[in-house]
Every structure is written in C-alpha cells, then in structure tokens.
C-alpha cells in the first residue's frame, strides 16, 4: 500500500506498543534526570555558570539517553522475527524506517518536554519567554538524532556488542546536532535572548541530508 498509509500503520503500532508498557519512556526520563543531577556536581550551578553550561549539558544528556533508548528499536524486531513479517507486508521498506523514526522523535520530544521545566528549575534558566522557539529546536534536534539513530540501530542490531556499538557509531555522527542545538538553545536562554537562525537552518539541513540518505539506502540496511 502507499508509503503514507504504511507509515501511519507502523507509527500506530510503535506508539501503541510503547504507551502500553511505557518502559522506554520512563527509563529514558529517569536516565536524563540522573545525568542532569550528576552534571550539577561537576561545577558550581550558580546563575552565570548555569547559563553557560546548561544548554550543552542538556543536549549531551539527550544524546546519551537517545543512544541508549534507540537500541531496542530494531533489536526488538528480532525476537519473533517480526522484521521479516514487516518486510513481506510493505511495498516500500522506507515505511518501516519512517514509522520508527517518527515514533522515536515523538518519544524523544516527549521526554525532553517533560524534563525542560525540571531543568529550568534546577539551573535557574528562564524558559517561558522562549518556549515556542525551544520546542522548535528540540524538535529539529530530536528529529536529527532519531533519523541517524534509527538507521544505525538497524546496523548495530546485526553486530556484536550492540549495547556499546550504537553509542559508538551514533555519538560522533551527531556532533553537528550537538553543536548547533546547543548554540541555538544557549542563544534562547541568554540574558538577551535571540534566535540563532543559522543554527535552525543548519539543523534542518542535517535532518534533510540524513533523511534522504536513509531513503536512498534504507532497504540495504534490512537486507538478509
């Protein structure tokens, strides 16, 4: 059937599965919280330092969490070989990736939005005036993390040491996302907030490049 209908059916499956158990979401939220708290022990979280370090720490925490959260993505399709069932049922294998990466973006975004107010309180940063823009950068950054992470999850699921492999492959690849997202976030949380348009454009380009690459090469990632 069409890419759109297949993607939405698969997206529905991913969302339904996760919201039924909520195990990924809860563990990811707790993990990010833990990282944020631990980071606070490594420097003095007074006002000026928080603003300097805060955004970077936040995105670093998101990246670490994502590299763990994205592991089960293709791994869980191995248990009952449901990946084969999916491959047999869809016309375009890209639908499998698209469904999963949209779901992963939603999960990441959800955990980030849950943690944003906590982060704001712990580090004394004002998020309300720039909330809309923050959501935008969270979205674009999470999308980039998701696209790369979903693709590489398919790779690491076929190798040994997959728990360590996914972070190893993913984190260097996501350096541009870390740099740009941190920059945009820092600009928004600055004492004189501004929108770093170059950063937002850059994130959009990153997302587009890797989405296209996944579209072109995804089917080979699923080959037997």
């Amino acid at each position, binding site marked *: 059937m069409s890419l759109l209908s297949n993607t939405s059916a698969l997206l529905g*499956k991913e969302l339904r599965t996760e919201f039924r*158990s909520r195990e990924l979401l809860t563990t990811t939220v707790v993990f990010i919280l833990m990282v944020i708290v631990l980071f606070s022990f490594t420097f003095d979280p007074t006002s000026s330092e928080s603003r300097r370090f805060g955004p970077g720490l936040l995105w670093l925490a998101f990246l670490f969490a994502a590299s763990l959260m994205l592991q089960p993505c293709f791994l869980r399709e191995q248990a*009952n070989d449901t990946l084969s*069932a999916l491959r047999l*049922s869809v016309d375009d294998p890209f639908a499998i990736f698209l469904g999963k990466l949209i779901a992963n973006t939603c999960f990441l975004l959800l955990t980030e939005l849950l943690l944003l107010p906590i982060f704001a309180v712990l580090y004394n940063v004002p998020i309300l005036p720039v909330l809309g823009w923050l959501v935008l950068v969270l979205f674009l950054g999470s999308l980039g993390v998701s696209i790369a992470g979903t693709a590489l999850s398919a790779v690491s699921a076929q190798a040994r040491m997959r728990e360590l492999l996914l972070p190893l492959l993913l984190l260097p690849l996501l350096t541009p996302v870390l740099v740009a997202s941190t920059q945009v976030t820092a600009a928004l949380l600055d004492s004189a907030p501004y929108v770093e348009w170059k950063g937002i454009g850059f994130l959009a380009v990153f997302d587009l490049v890797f989405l296209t690459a996944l579209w072109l090469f995804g089917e080979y990632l699923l*080959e037997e």
Partner: protein
Amino acid sequence: MNPPRMIGAGLHFENIDKRYGSLFALRHVTLEIAAGECVVLAGRNGSGKTTLLRIAAGLARPSSGSLAFLSAKGATADGRIKTGFVAHATMVYDELTAEENLLLFARLQGIPDAQNRVQSLLADVDLADRRDSLVRTFSRGMRQRVALARALLREPSILLLDEPATGLDPDGTAWLARTLRRLRGSGCTMLMSLHGESEISAMATRAVRLDTGKVVADTASGASLKSILTFADA
C-alpha cells in the same frame, strides 16, 4: 471453515546458489514445483531448507541463479504471485493482541475490508474468543495459529512453511494437518520443510531431500517418499 478460493501457482528455482561468506547454504539448486503440488523438503539442520524457503518468500536473494513463479497453467507469471510464509519464529508481536497483529498486517498489505477478513480468519484458526488477548499469553500452538492466519491474510497461491509443527503437541499437529488439508483442497500450492514422518508429511505429493545445500533426492525422479523422509535425520 470456508476455504478461500485460492488457485495455486508454481515455482521454478533455476541453478540457485546462496552463500554467506565462504559457506554455501545452497548450491546449484534447480527445482520446479507445479501449481497445486504439496512438496515436502526434508534434510538435516543446515541442509538449506530454511534458506530455500526464505528465497521463495522473497526475504533473501540468491547469490546467483533465479526464481520464477509460474501461473496455474505453467506459464511464467507476469504479475506478482502472492505467497504466504510460516516460519520457525511466529513473526507476530507479543505485545499486541491477536486481532491487533492481524489488523496491522492486513492494513500494511492493503487487504480490502480488513476488519471482516481478520475476524473471519480468527474464526478459521479457532482464535475468535482470544482475539483480545496479547499474543504473549498464548501457548505455542496458539501462536502458530496466529502465524498461519497472518500468512493467509492475502489469500496466497503458494504457502511456504518452515517446520510448522515444531513445538506443537499432538492436538496442535492434528489441527495443523486438518487446516493444511483444507487449504490444499482449495488448490493452494505448498512447499514445506519437515523433520521426519508425520500426519502432515502424509499429505505430500512429492518430497525433495537437501543435503549441504544440494538436492540429493527427489520423488519426481523416482526416489521413494518414505526413504526421503526417514533418512532426513540419519
């Protein structure tokens, strides 16, 4: 159960090789299966049965050689022939209910009137009363039934089964044999891998034995059915 009107199709494997690194899973396999045949693939573990079935299902591609589908009349089919695949693994999601699983695959495959089709299939495999239970709670036999229902969603002309009776108790095996006989009655071609003789192997019209990826015996060339099946575990 009302068997769907399935007209079988044939399969032609031409000089198929499949290798993984330096290992040949299949070597020079040429085999023609006519529409409506019920063929048993016998052989030890690692003889290539699963690989051949997965190639027929379209999950794996041969390293060399080709696979063609034949219409019921024996001519090469132009359109896509619908195949159904029942594997060792159930290929359904434990965290979804039987109904959710079938609806998902029905939607993905674009089955018209999915809801009704799913309900009738659930009835056919005697799982209508467990449609809202998570597959995780099912016994092995029940999981096989969901797996079979999934394979039958698009009314395949060829049914491929990889050791479908593994882990089934005698009741389960009897049920499977009955169901497969009914499907045969509607003209569906079947290619299945089995270990040894059983109720299920009894309905075979032909048997082929594989050893280390090669075809070593075929009832079509004169070998006896019994000899192929019983040597399987030697």
